[in-house]
């Protein structure tokens, strides 16, 4: 059940309701290799978002008629658990979830050497266990780590982060209440090493100048997240290495 709040979102010192500065990310924790059955997996906490991603593949395509002759078929599914939001979400995929699945697939696709695995498919399952704004970006961030954990060759990790405008301020990494009450939200995904923006959406109202600033803010967020992704993979690598050496 949702409760209402009417707190001001940004105080006169430019400090946000959760104590962050305007250009500050929420605390982020990324862990790779968390689902035993999956070929690759990752878990991300970004503020109050909790998201689990499992990767299966490259594997046979089912149903067969979707097979691509020259490359792997990538399918990303973004799905929210019924209990991940204040008002229970019905289990069947909503139109929003279907659209996000599509744009997330587009955001991930350019990062993978799909042409190395013709006639196969790679399934990426993103499960939002707890949602508090910015789940599509956190989902992409975790999905990219899970794909690396699966050993799938990639051009770069895709890091994603939103920026936007809240109570007149340009802010980084909006949480749910900022997204809903704020003036604009712009989720963006980036392969930093290639300066390649693979996801870009926007809701709200921004002048061209503000837009440029918000894009740049989001880009800085992505770059910080990119570092965290690499650290998570390194930690995973060390853990696996230790486990192997133990045997």
């Amino acid at each position, binding site marked *: 059940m949702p409760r209402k709040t009417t707190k001001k979102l940004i105080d006169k010192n430019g400090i946000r309701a959760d104590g962050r500065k305007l250009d500050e990310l929420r605390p982020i924790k990324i862990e790779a290799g968390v689902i035993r059955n999956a070929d690759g997996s990752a878990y991300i906490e970004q503020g109050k978002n909790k998201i689990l991603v499992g990767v299966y593949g490259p594997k046979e395509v089912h149903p067969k008629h979707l097979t691509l002759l020259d490359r792997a078929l990538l399918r990303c599914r973004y799905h929210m658990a019924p209990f991940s939001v204040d008002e229970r979400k019905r289990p069947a995929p909503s139109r929003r979830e*279907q659209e996000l699945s599509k744009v997330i697939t587009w955001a991930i696709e350019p990062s993978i050497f799909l042409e190395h695995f013709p006639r196969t498919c790679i399934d990426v399952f993103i499960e939002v266990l707890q949602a508090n704004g910015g789940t599509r970006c956190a989902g992409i961030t975790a999905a990219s780590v899970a794909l690396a954990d699966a050993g799938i060759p990639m051009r770069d990790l895709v890091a994603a982060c939103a920026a936007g405008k809240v109570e007149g301020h340009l802010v980084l990494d909006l949480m749910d209440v900022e997204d809903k009450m704020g003036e604009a939200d712009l989720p963006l995904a980036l392969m930093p090493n290639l*300066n390649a*923006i693979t*996801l870009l959406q926007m809701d709200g*109202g921004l002048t061209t100048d503000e837009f440029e600033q918000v894009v740049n803010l989001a880009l800085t967020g992505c770059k910080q997240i990119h570092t965290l992704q690499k650290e998570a993979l390194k930690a995973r690598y060390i853990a696996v290495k230790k486990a192997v050496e133990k045997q």
Partner: protein
Amino acid sequence: MTQIIIPHITQKQIVQSISDGKRLDGRGLTDYREVQLEAGIIGSAEGSARVRLGKTEVLVGIKIEVGAPFSDIPNEGVLTVNAELVPLASPTFETGPPGKEAIELARVVDRGIRESKAIALEKLCAIPKKKVFIVFIDIYVLNHDGNLIDASALAALAALLNTKMFKYQVKDGEIEIKPGYTQLPIRNHPIAVTLAKINEKLIVDPELGEEQVMDTRLTMTIEKDGKICAMQKGGSGYFTTQQIMEATKIAQEKSIELRKLMVKG
């Protein structure tokens, strides 16, 4: 979904031509195809418009019904956008419930209208918490030759501007329809401009063949005061930051051009 196969040679020609700064049909990189607009053609709808963008053809019909508000916005009418890619419009469209392509189309058009606050939804509340008006915007694609988003957004806007709202009074908690009509209150005119990236060049209004060779696309929806109210990157390629900024400028210009066709005076 069946693919329309564009011969490999044509694909090469499209790319080559764009690299040379022109397009196979003679357009410049930032030229739209001819826009034809016909409003009010469906008598059973409260509003309607057909837009032809070259050979692409989209019909939008608007229905207004009485319904319940969302519990968290009890004093406002409801906006619902739906798109049907009916199979007569293309050999690639299939019968059945809307696929992801139709859902994306509807949601991009929806965001442009919603975020620009084009409809004064707060004026569409008859009895707070109980009865409000629901505006159904139904996008019906009649021929698909590329750039369905811009054509649909144009047709939706034209249909909204053409929508008549019946007069009513509230009596004993019931809505009674009265004779006569007013205009649906519209206060913004969002215009969607879609750009495609082909071989590192940006073009506007991609036709079907261009969509099939494009790396990626970007739609920007621009309000009448020049604010950007919605944006959607589609397709599996990427943009550089520089390309995004360049796209913004083109979209601004094009939106002014297109808006003139929609809103006279």
